Each structure stands twice: as C-alpha cells, then as structure tokens.
C-alpha cells in the first residue's frame, strides 16, 4: 500500500511538472504582455517593470526560476495587481468558490442519481419521460442562461432572493441551483443509461424472484453496479465546480476563483495563470486518484484483476 501511494504521488508530481511546463511555454507563445493597458507607459518605466518581474531574462531562465520557486511552495507575485501574491489570491477566493461548489454537488449528486434511477426503473413510462425532460432542460439551458433567468424571476420580479453577492444562506440558493443543473442532468443520464442495463442482469432477476421489492433491489443491487460511469464523470467535474464557474460568479457578483483564470489569461498575468493552473491540476489529479480508488472499492472484479497483475500472472 505504501509502495502504491509512493508510486502514485511520484506520477502525480511528474504530471504536474508536465502541466506547468506546457502552460509556461504556451502562455509565453501568445503575443501581449501584462503591462499593456489603457495608458501609455514610458519606455523606461516599462524596462524597469520588465527587469523587476524578470521578464527581460531569457525564457528558459524564467522557467527555471519559476520551478525553483514552486519547489519551495512559492507561487510568485501577480504582475497586474502589483505586490499581491498569487497564494494570497487563491487563499481568499477559493473558500468562497469551494463552499458554493460543495453545496452544488450536494444538490447534484443525490438528485441526479435519484432521477436516473427512477427513469430506469420505470423505463418508457411517464416517470422516464418526465425525468428525461427535466434533465434535458438542465443540459440545454447553459448555466449562464439559467442563472440570468433565475435572477430575473426570483430576484427582480418576485423579490424572494437577494440579487447578487454572497453574504447569507439566501444569497447562495440561486447560484447553487444554477451551478448544479448541468451535473444533475448529466448524472441522471448516465445513471439511467447504466441502470437500465444492470436491471436486466440475472442477479436482479434472482432478487426479483426472491420477492424483494423493486425499490430495494435497485438501491442495493443495481445502484452499486450502475454508478461507476457517474464516478468517472464526477472526478474532473467536481474539481471544476469546486474551483468556481466564471459565468455564475460574474452574474451573481461572487468574488470566487472562477473569474480569475479568465481575467489572468486576458491580462497576461503570467504568475497568476501558472499559480491557478498548478492549483487546479493538483486538485484534478487528487480527484482522479480518488476515482481510481473508488473504482476498485465499488467493483471487486477490477480489484481482483489488479491483484492478479501484481502477482505477475
């Protein structure tokens, strides 16, 4: 087990390095620089800015310097918001996005699985059609349209919820809902698709023959087998939701992490781009690692296979 963890973390570090390297050279290949804005900057000031942030050095030297800093856990200083460190930015914005994302996941996972299971159990009946219509609306309304619509109806017309910002529980309701819609729909579709298949298996027929109620069979025998694709899907999506959505945060004026990625790319804020990428990809790789573990926990056949391979047969 320790060997396994060691190998995994080695691979994680290696992938992280590839991501950082790729992103580093990619972003420097794009024309533009962080200091070009509305105002004209005198050449001398520009030169000293370049010198201060090390942009006058050759690219490979900048790269080595960045890696060195990263190795010591230093993500650097923003070039656009002079003097604020990238770590500070993330520390401030991430908890907000994570809170919102977590509540969206708490809505999306159970309701998606519930809709999908019902649809599969009552295949081609009205329950199925209703669940699929709900999930279609969730998919075909992009979250920014849904968010604007919700804001319009509930905030401006009905005055049920506050319009924007994130200050209380009531503020969080609409953004959570808007954020949860797409994953709910996706999970429902995947669950239904698999559940339909699982419910045809012999062991389900056996359970039915024993006289167990269909609901219990679906829950105990079906779901565990039908849920693997959902978990695959959840790994990357959970990371994305927890690190914030640009559109939702923009519409509801929430100071989360989602908008910073877009802003920093537009502003060519190199340390910010890299820092956010490192943060996001670390999260992603950890999520994928957890997915792998969940896989072998949920499906013993996959675990046996791994063991067999480990023994060299």
């Amino acid at each position, binding site marked *: 087990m320790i060997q396994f963890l060691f190998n995994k973390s080695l691979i994680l570090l290696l992938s992280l390095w590839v991501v950082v390297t790729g992103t580093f050279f990619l972003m420097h290949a794009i024309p533009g620089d962080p200091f070009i804005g509305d105002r004209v900057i005198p050449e001398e000031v520009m030169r000293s800015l370049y010198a201060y942030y090390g942009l006058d050095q050759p690219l490979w030297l900048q790269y080595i310097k960045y890696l060195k800093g990263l190795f010591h856990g230093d993500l650097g200083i923003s070039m656009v918001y002079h003097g604020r460190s990238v770590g500070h930015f993330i520390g401030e914005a991430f908890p907000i996005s994570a809170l919102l994302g977590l509540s969206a996941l708490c809505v999306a996972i159970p309701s998606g699985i519930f809709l999908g299971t019902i649809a599969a159990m009552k295949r081609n009946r009205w329950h199925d059609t209703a669940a699929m219509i709900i*999930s279609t609306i969730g998919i075909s309304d992009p979250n920014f349209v849904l968010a604007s619509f919700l804001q319009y109806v509930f905030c401006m017309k009905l005055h049920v919820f506050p319009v924007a910002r994130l200050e209380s529980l009531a503020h969080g309701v609409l953004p959570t809902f808007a954020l949860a819609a797409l994953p709910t729909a996706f999970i429902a*579709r995947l669950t239904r698709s698999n559940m339909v298949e699982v419910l045809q298996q012999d062991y389900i027929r056996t359970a039915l023959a024993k006289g167990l109620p269909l609901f219990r069979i679906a829950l105990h025998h079906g779901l565990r087998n039908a849920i693997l694709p959902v978990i695959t*899907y959840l790994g990357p999506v959970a990371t994305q939701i927890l690190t914030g959505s640009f559109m939702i945060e923009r519409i509801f004026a929430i100071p989360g992490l989602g908008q910073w990625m877009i802003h920093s790319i537009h502003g060519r804020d190199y340390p910010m781009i890299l820092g956010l990428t490192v943060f996001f990809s670390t999260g992603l790789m950890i999520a994928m690692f957890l997915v792998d573990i969940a896989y072998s926990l949920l499906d013993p056949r996959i675990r046996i296979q791994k063991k067999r391979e480990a023994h060299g047969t």
Partner: protein
Amino acid sequence: MEHEFPGFWRDAWRRFSSNRPALFALWTLAAIAAMAIFGPLFSSYSYYDIHLEWHDTPPGPKFWFGSDELGRDLFTRIWWGARISLFIGIAAAVIDMIFGVIWGSVAALAGGRLDETMMRVCDILYAIPYLLVVILLTVIRGSGIATILIAMTCTGWINMARIVRGQILQIKEYDYVVAARLNGASNARILMRHLIPNAIGPIIAAVTLTVPTAIFTEAFLSFLGLGVQAPAASWGVMVNDGLSAMRYYPWRLLFPSAMLTLTMLSFNLLGNTLRDALDPRLRR
C-alpha cells in the same frame, strides 16, 4: 453483423419506431435540419441586413420572429445560426466520440503501465488551461469555425475516453469476454465484437450530451470574443445577446433558446431510444 443475426437492424428499427416520443424527435430533427438548409430561402431578408428603423420589432407579419437591436430579421438569423450551431455540435460530438472510444478502449484493454500513462496524458491535457490553447490557435489560424472546432475537440474527447475506459474495465471481466479470450479471440476482435457493443449505451448517452455542451462552449468562446464573428451568429451567440434584452424584448431570448431546447430534447430522446433499441437484451 447483419448476416449473422438476420433481422438485427430490422428488430432495432421495430423497437425504435414503436416508441412515439422517439419518432417525434426524429421528425423534429429532420424538420430543423431541413429548415437550416432551406429556411433562409423563405425569407426576404439576409442574416446581415440592418434595418435600424425597425430595431427590436416584436414578432409580426414583417419579421416573423421579430428583429434584433440592429433590425436584423431573427427568423433568417435563427436558421443561419442553426447551420453553424448544428454543424459545430454534431462535428464536435463525432470527433470526440471517435478519439474517445479509441483512446479509452485501448487504455482499458492494454491495462497496466500503458493504461496508467494514457490516462495521465488525459489528466495533463485536461489540466492545461483550455483558454490558452484557444487563444493561441486563434492567433495562429485566425478565428473561424474550423479553429473553434479544433480548439474544442483537443480536450473534448477526454471525457468520452474516461467513460469508455471505465465501461470496458468493467465489461472485460465478464465471463463471456474471458470465454472469448480462452477461445483464442484476438484483442481487436474482442474489442469490436464484445466490448464496444456492450458499452454502446453510455457511449450514446455521452455523445448526445456532447452536442449541447459543444454548442455552448462555442457560445462561451463567442462571449469572450473568440467564437463566431459578427455578423454571422450561432444559437449560442443569439441566446447570449437575447439575455441582455430579456426584460424588454423577450422574443430575442425566447426564439433562439426555444429552438435550442427543442433540438436538445430531440437529441436526448433519440439517444435514449437508440440506446435501448440497439441492445437486444433489453426486450421487455
């Protein structure tokens, strides 16, 4: 496959056509596709004609679906948008499916170190900020539909690869696969005859979901100024424009989003039924 199971496709069609919502979906999609091709012919306006004196006209005999803030005819623009959006959505979904199925099934079947490496490549591609790639591509190739499509598919297939791999990891442990292997079937044969056909359900489900995702990724890119350039407009762009006018000129949001929802609903119903119809075990 056909001569070994006489009537497989006929059987699938019979099951498909007995499902009324699916037939409705099929006709709806056919109608939308036909309108995308011939729709602009019915209108006396072009999608870029500006009539400033008629801006924001409600739907009526002059503009069937109303007009936008520059007095452009929404009816014509919707069908032009259909061409762009449907093309982007379907092309992206097909490309994603091909790459995803190949990558995912090879990884799952190979197992071991190759599998590990292939999946880490996915993680790495997924982690590199996607917008950087799009901007770089736009700088190199200029903006246009091809650029958008390339940019979208370079990371789009990953999701499909993951789903396919997950499915095949599970299926390849089933007894019939082991039996086929004992009978000396080659990897390629096992993959084509046993693994992919049995994973087709989630694959189809994921493909039908990629279409709207692609249409909206394009809208998002357009929102950032990287997508389809004016005066051409995709559905995503029109929905986006309509949002800002929602309070006073609701038809500008209503028509494009209604078309979009209708298309998506049809794709979903079609995907669901197709998935059930193609699986012979699902007779009930």
